[in-house]
């Protein structure tokens, strides 16, 4: 088996979310999702569109980390000033982000933790574009720390993104754009393929058990079958592309100690 790190396994698993998406804007926020979008475009899905992280569309994904300012080659233009018109509100986008919390309905939170709207205990970024993203286009998530603090019991503290919670859906609204795809964590890959969109374990990273995933999740999980497959990892060609997209090895800092994807025996 090819030797790779947990971060590289996560990049590879995240990149699969962008397969067969068609000509849409693939947005990965944070090193792992961004490398995943780039890897998808360079390997199986060249039709994907993406930006340089600023305002230009590029056909050659821009490497992450320090580089010179003008070394991106712009093929198109998609500034924030037309992002909603072109990508978000037309549904031509798949974003992969890391919210602070997610719940069993796929509702996500980036706004605040604890307290109230008027006096939050911990103020975070604000909802940003989550409400619009989640009602209009595909979304996937990467959680580098899969715990009950991130995959929470009950509901998230402030619902910043639409999920599959019938109780929160105003009658008569059009929710046909809600499309939550994949959740990649440090332990496993999940989707919403269980009964009534229940979150479901579709693969386990090497050495991880379903029980360990369940213990670290704040709500009951479904499983894809009696036997849950092991998450597929990158081959030598994919690893070379990841290295090309991350020349400064930013990915080594994603997980403490940059562990191998294969756990050492306890």
């Amino acid at each position, binding site marked *: 088996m090819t030797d790779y790190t947990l971060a590289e396994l996560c990049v590879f698993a995240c990149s699969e979310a962008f397969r067969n998406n068609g000509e849409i804007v693939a947005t990965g926020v944070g090193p792992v999702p961004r490398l995943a979008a780039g890897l998808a475009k360079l390997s199986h899905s060249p039709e994907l569109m993406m930006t340089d992280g600023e305002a230009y569309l590029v056909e050659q994904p821009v490497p992450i980390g320090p580089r010179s*300012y003008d070394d991106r080659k712009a093929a198109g233009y998609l500034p*924030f000033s037309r992002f909603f018109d072109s990508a978000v509100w037309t549904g031509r986008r798949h974003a992969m982000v890391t919210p602070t919390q997610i719940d069993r309905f796929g509702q996500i939170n980036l706004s605040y933790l604890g307290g109230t709207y*008027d006096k939050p205990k911990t103020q975070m*970024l604000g909802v940003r574009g989550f*409400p619009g993203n989640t009602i209009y286009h595909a979304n996937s998530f990467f959680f580098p720390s899969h715990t009950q603090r991130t995959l929470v019991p009950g509901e998230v503290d402030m619902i910043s993104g639409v999920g599959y919670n019938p109780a929160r859906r105003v*009658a*008569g609204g059009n929710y046909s754009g809600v499309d939550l795809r994949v959740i990649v964590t440090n332990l496993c890959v999940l989707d919403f393929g269980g009964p009534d969109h229940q979150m479901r374990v579709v693969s386990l990273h090497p050495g991880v058990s379903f029980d360990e995933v369940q213990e670290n999740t704040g709500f009951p999980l479904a499983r894809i079958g009696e036997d849950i497959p092991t998450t597929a990892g990158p081959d030598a060609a994919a690893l070379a592309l990841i290295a090309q997209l991350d020349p400064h090895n930013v990915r080594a800092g994603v997980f403490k100690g940059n562990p191998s994807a294969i756990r050492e025996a306890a």
Partner: protein
Amino acid sequence: MPATLDKRMSAQEMVATLRDGMTVGIGGWGPRRKPMALVREILRSDVKDLTIVAYGGADVGMLCAAGKVKKLVFAFVSLDAIPLEPWFRKAREAGGLEVMELDEGMFQWGLKAAAFGLPFLPTRVGLGTDLAELGGLKTVQSPYADSETLIAMPALKLDVAFIHANRSDWRGNVHLFGADTYYDEWFAKAAAKTFVSCEELVDRMEDHYPGDAQYNVFERCFVSGVVEMPGGAHPSSMPPAYGWDMKAFKAYADAAKDPGDWSAVADRFVGASESAYLEQIGGKEAVAALPLPIF
């Protein structure tokens, strides 16, 4: 030119038009293209109880820290590399700041409603989240066969907007460069009065830069006053002229740590005057030398 078309005024004169309780829009996005020199001028004034409407960065953090803000309309407040704006965070966690939290797209939709003189514009965005209930947003029903229920995003009408442009002439013919001008155009159109600071002010744009007219992102009928303030976006970025000053942002963020008393540190980040501020940070040459950020 007729005297009325000469829109030159000082930053102090611009800020002197503000009254307590007004709704003020601030252009730019997070740590980018912020009219910080004009924000500093507000901080040097006595005006208070403002409703601030902004894609927030240090502009929002400073105004909150200084107690100028009664209500904040926002989708995020962030300095990018320093994701959580520390002074905004303190103000929120202390309570007492009224807020209307919006999605980034709803926010620009509200500016567009104001620009077109509409009471609201319909959108799906916000349905299924906490925004509608917490923000008091109402719904409307489509009168057509689909009968779809939609959020009625209220117009974000601004009394005044402040924008930092790359260039202007005396009449308010602006040029906005940079890879992205965000929603500056819509802040200008949503406001009863828009005041523009700029890196370079010329008498007649057509005599100097006739080839750059496509950078006139919004027309001069939306400009009430102009002032030349090179380095006026510092510490935010103003491409292609200069990048953000992450060292300055870091010092500003560090100053929010215990005890984090704004009145004790405000002088470092505001200064007694804009020239004093610029001198403090090494002059406009030091600002011009800041490299553009890489994403």
